[in-house]
């Protein structure tokens, strides 16, 4: 089966600056892929090439088998795109704008009213359909942008930071909406809200400084990564200094400690795949320390993200 998105050795250089270099990835039909990276990593550039807005310097990109440059119109017919910052015409009314966009995207004339009605309802815009876009709040504008991306009922949705600049309630609404949309479609979404990605996306692609750093399911990334997790250990401060004993245990990479009142607080960083909880308990029993708390903290996608994109290497 042809993958929905196929990117091969994509490179884009602007006047002397390499925005993305040798980027390759694939997205199969029905996948929801989170596209992550710090600001300026090349997310928007990649998305803009995929949507036919920018030409690549070298490499190829295909949407549903159509080359985005050579068969640009066919490729563009397959996708709905929400650009960063949701540019819209402020002088148009919501329903008028969506009708215009549907018409432009080739929705059949007899189905225009029906499609526009559908997306108005889907994106919760019915109560503002007669309002001027310029008079809408940021949350509504974002939803108008999403409705626009959806109006031609495309197979693929490319959403560039759909939740940026929204308040927590609006983020929640947009997230719910995207989750509903993802049931029937292929979605490529870039965002900075990592817990969202962990919930919504079947796969994560992390890009940093124009290069792909990781491409895997969130689970696998967490399992395989160095930042696999940490253990928080609280023992009574009457006991001896625990650090030298703990660092002897295999699987523990690093031990940090501080004392608060009569409690020693220890943060243990664990190597990938290791689970030293039982040897630690063993040690506590042996040394007769007063155990107050032992918690394993699972690594989050945020840890992986920071680890992969923090260093300049």
């Amino acid at each position: 089966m042809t993958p929905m998105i196929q990117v091969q050795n994509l490179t884009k250089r602007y006047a002397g600056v390499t925005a993305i270099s040798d980027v390759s990835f694939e997205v199969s039909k029905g996948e929801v892929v989170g596209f992550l990276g710090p600001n300026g990593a090349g997310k928007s550039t990649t998305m803009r090439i995929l949507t036919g807005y920018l030409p690549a310097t070298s490499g190829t990109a295909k949407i549903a088998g159509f080359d985005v440059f050579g068969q640009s119109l066919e490729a563009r017919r397959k996708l709905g795109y929400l650009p960063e910052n949701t540019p819209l015409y402020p002088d148009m009314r919501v329903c008028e704008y969506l009708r215009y966009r549907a018409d432009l995207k080739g929705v059949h004339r007899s189905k225009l009213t029906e499609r526009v009605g559908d997306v108005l309802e889907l994106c919760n815009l019915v109560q503002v359909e007669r309002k001027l876009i310029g008079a809408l709040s940021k949350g509504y504008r974002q939803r108008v942008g999403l409705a626009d991306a959806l109006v031609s009922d495309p197979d693929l949705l490319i959403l560039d930071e759909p939740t940026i600049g929204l308040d927590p309630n609006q983020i929640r609404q947009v997230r719910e909406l995207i989750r509903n949309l993802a049931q029937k479609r292929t979605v490529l979404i870039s965002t900075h809200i990592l817990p969202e990605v962990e919930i919504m996306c079947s796969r994560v692609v992390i890009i940093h400084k124009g290069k792909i750093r990781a491409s895997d399911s969130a689970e696998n990334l967490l399992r395989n990564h160095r930042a696999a997790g940490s253990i928080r250990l609280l023992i009574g401060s009457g006991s001896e200094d625990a650090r030298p004993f703990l660092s002897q245990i295999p699987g523990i990479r690093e031990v940090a400690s501080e004392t608060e009142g009569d409690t020693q607080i220890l943060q243990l960083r664990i190597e990938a795949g290791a689970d030293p909880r039982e040897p630690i308990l063993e040690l506590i029993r042996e040394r007769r320390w007063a155990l107050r708390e032992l918690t394993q903290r699972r690594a989050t996608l945020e840890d992986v993200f920071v680890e992969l994109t923090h260093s300049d290497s």
Partner: protein
Amino acid sequence: MRTLHTLLERELKSYFHSPIAYVVGFFFLLATGFNFQSGLMNLNHSGSEVTLVEASFNSIQFWFPFLLIFPLITMRAYSDEFRTGTIETLTTAPVEDWQVVLAKFLGSFLFYCTLWMPSALYFLAFELLTGKQAALAAGAYGGTYLLLMLLGMFYCSIGCLASALSNEQINAAVMTFVSIFAAFLGGLFTLIFDVTNPALRDLISHVSAIEHMMDFSRGLMDTRPVVWYLSMTALVLFLNLQVFQYRKWKA
């Protein structure tokens, strides 16, 4: 065809949604009305041999407001799209770049045409009220309005090109005005200076808007200016397409 129609409809709507259109329309009506009235006054007082149409369209009162409206009509064609980023939603829809360029041009041109509509009423009213002819023959009307359309096409295309070059409306407006004014002044050259070289003289009169107007308003229609304005419009629109793609791809 459908895409072009949709784009054009949106362009025209955007003209009539903006207050600038009505301000331009109001002042244009004022200027053409004033121009008509001063043409009438001139004929009344000087007893010259020209017709009202000739008197109205061959005066400084006509040319000055005429050249001034193009920057106002075309300045926001592309500038706004680039500045607000809507160019990205527009060009990632399944539309071809040439369709965008053509729709923007036709939008500005059709808006320009609507500005001229009321002026026909002046001459109609004059003929009905005085029972006299305002032009030598029907051909003089036809020639005048044909030339107005041709000049409109050429100057609108220049305005669209300038707008595609800049994110700021004001820059686009200044560029448009300077280019149109320069093209217009070039045609005045033989009237101001004594040009002795016959080849240069010929060349200038071939491209002189003011000389074209003198002929066309008398009903002397020549195909050379028609070809000149149509081909220049096509050339500028071609440049416009190149600039548009360059700007878009550089973004």
